[in-house]
């Protein structure tokens, strides 16, 4: 029966729509409720601008209407991917600004995710299998320290050691001077060089939680009866751990991956500001500093969409991986 599976997905999609509306209403409301208006920078701080100019600006941006009208107007534009124009600086469409910065942030986070999974899954499996052994103890200590490590401090330390004391990597920006004149291979190397430190920070900060989670998930699985059965059948340890154990131990990790998207998006604000990377996080930070409504809202919406997409993918992956859900039970 394939029907229950589709019903499950359909209900999920409907629910995601509700969550999306919830998130946008909340953001819109909170931001418009907060004192201080985006026109402040152009009016209050400008002695030439009077009350009339302020009113004109507010009318131009539609800020004179009640909040719910503004929300509906805004929403009807959002669904057509019209995020409005940035209120500060170059006044370019927000969507264009987001589009050119999306690949860097997404790319970095996805690369980091693969690295994190590649390292933390073996760590978690080994710690769980040899629970209480020396590897488990050492990795537990490292995990606790890693969990408490502020990402931005790690970034500073890495800059200090690998950028200044032993200058292995450049510490800011995405490309070197004269990037355009390089051959494609040198361009690639240059990019990789600039992304090495940020990637390292993302990976190290994400590693702790994931390997801890993997460990407890694996411990739970190894306690199950089917593992005992597999062992009793005389299957080789390798088959027991990887075929019977890991496949089940990985299930909760899929959900965790979906849930970790908001954290990654938030983290990129800090990391990208520190390393001066032209990504979404930096864009959001600039928007926040200049009180750029459309830019902030655009970023919040995008953050919400990415998060929901993450959840959706995780849920879908989970249903594919878990035959019980696939059967609609």
């Amino acid at each position, binding site marked *: 029966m394939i029907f229950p599976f589709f019903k499950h997905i359909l209900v999920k999609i409907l629910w995601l729509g509700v969550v999306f509306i919830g998130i946008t209403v909340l953001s819109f409301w909170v931001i418009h409720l907060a004192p201080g208006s985006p026109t402040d920078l152009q009016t209050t701080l400008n002695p030439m601008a009077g009350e009339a100019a302020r009113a004109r600006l507010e009318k131009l941006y539609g800020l004179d209407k009640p909040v719910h009208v503004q929300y509906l107007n805004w929403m009807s534009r959002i669904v057509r991917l019209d995020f409005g124009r940035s209120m500060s600086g170059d006044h370019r469409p927000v969507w264009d600004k987001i589009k050119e910065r999306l690949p860097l942030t997404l790319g970095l986070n996805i690369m980091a995710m693969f690295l994190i999974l590649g390292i933390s899954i073996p760590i978690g499996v080994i710690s769980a299998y040899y629970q209480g052994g020396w590897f488990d103890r050492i990795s537990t200590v490292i995990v606790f320290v890693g969990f408490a490590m*502020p990402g*931005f*401090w790690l970034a500073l330390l890495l800059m200090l050691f690998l950028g200044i004391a032993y200058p292995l990597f450049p510490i800011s920006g995405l490309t070197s001077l004269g990037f355009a004149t390089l051959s494609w291979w040198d361009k690639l190397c240059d990019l990789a060089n600039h992304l090495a430190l940020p990637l390292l920070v993302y990976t190290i900060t994400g590693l702790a939680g994931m390997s801890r989670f993997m460990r407890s998930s694996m411990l739970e699985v190894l306690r199950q009866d089917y593992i005992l059965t597999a062992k009793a059948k005389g299957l080789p340890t390798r088959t027991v751990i990887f075929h019977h154990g890991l496949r089940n131990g990985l299930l909760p990790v899929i959900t965790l991956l979906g849930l970790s998207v908001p954290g990654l998006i938030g983290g990129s604000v800090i990391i990208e500001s520190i390393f001066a990377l032209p990504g979404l996080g930096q864009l*959001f930070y600039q928007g926040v500093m200049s009180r750029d409504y459309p830019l902030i809202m655009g970023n919040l919406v995008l953050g919400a969409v990415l998060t929901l997409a993450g959840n959706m993918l995780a849920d879908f992956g989970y249903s594919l991986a878990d035959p019980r859900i696939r059967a609609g039970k």
Partner: protein
Amino acid sequence: MFAMKTRLFISRYGLFFVGVILVGTMVFLALLAPWICSYGPNALDVNAILLPPGSDHLLGTDALGRDVFARLVYGARVSLWVGFVAVGISASIGLVLGLVAGYFGGLVDEIIMRCVDVMLCFPSFFLILAVIAFLEPSLTNIMIVIGLTSWMGVARLVRAETLSLKERDFVKAARISGASIVRILGMHILPNALTPVLGSATLGIAAAILTESALSFLGLGVQPPVPSWGNILMEGKDVMEIAPWLSVFPGMCILLTVLGYNLLGETLRDLLDPRLKQR
């Protein structure tokens, strides 16, 4: 026999005590700040600019000649205070919503838990940044905003606890004897639901301290000249090459404090969990 007992004791409570010591030290320093520091946190000294750590200034001085040790110790006050108040706010919201959702069930429960789901989906650091940028960045605002965006875990825990508690005989007895809902929730269910919240709240303090320091580091948190570990790091970033101690020590403080609270929270959760105790 004794050696075995000690080992068991260490393996069970060792991490707990490491946490107690780390957090205790920070609380001690923060409380006794004026008596520990020989310099004020904002005392400028043009003759002592960017001095490396030494006997006179234990952890060196910053670009304005202020004593880094004194600023760190006063920064501990800020961080610990933010942690306590933010978690106080989030735990209160979580407790009330969790109790209400669990006790009344039905539509109320559904609405509250769906709100929890929405909030969990939210890139909350984005929201915090946006809100702080529109409000004046101040200590009070940071604590409120962190508190308002981190109550979901507690709400879920308390709801689950309430669901099972409300079926227990002593709650039924209270209901039959005509106790008001407020009394049932506050006197009978709340005290029993508090235990699991304790561990989670302690972990919440650690998270709040991390968020505050990140905000201050971005210049959207505690505003200079009030010292906070985050803004000391921010000021130190510009002179990283000539004064690395300004970048190293504040981060160490954050790391140790957060580590302490995390250890406390994790071990409290394990120690207070009756299911794990029986094993």
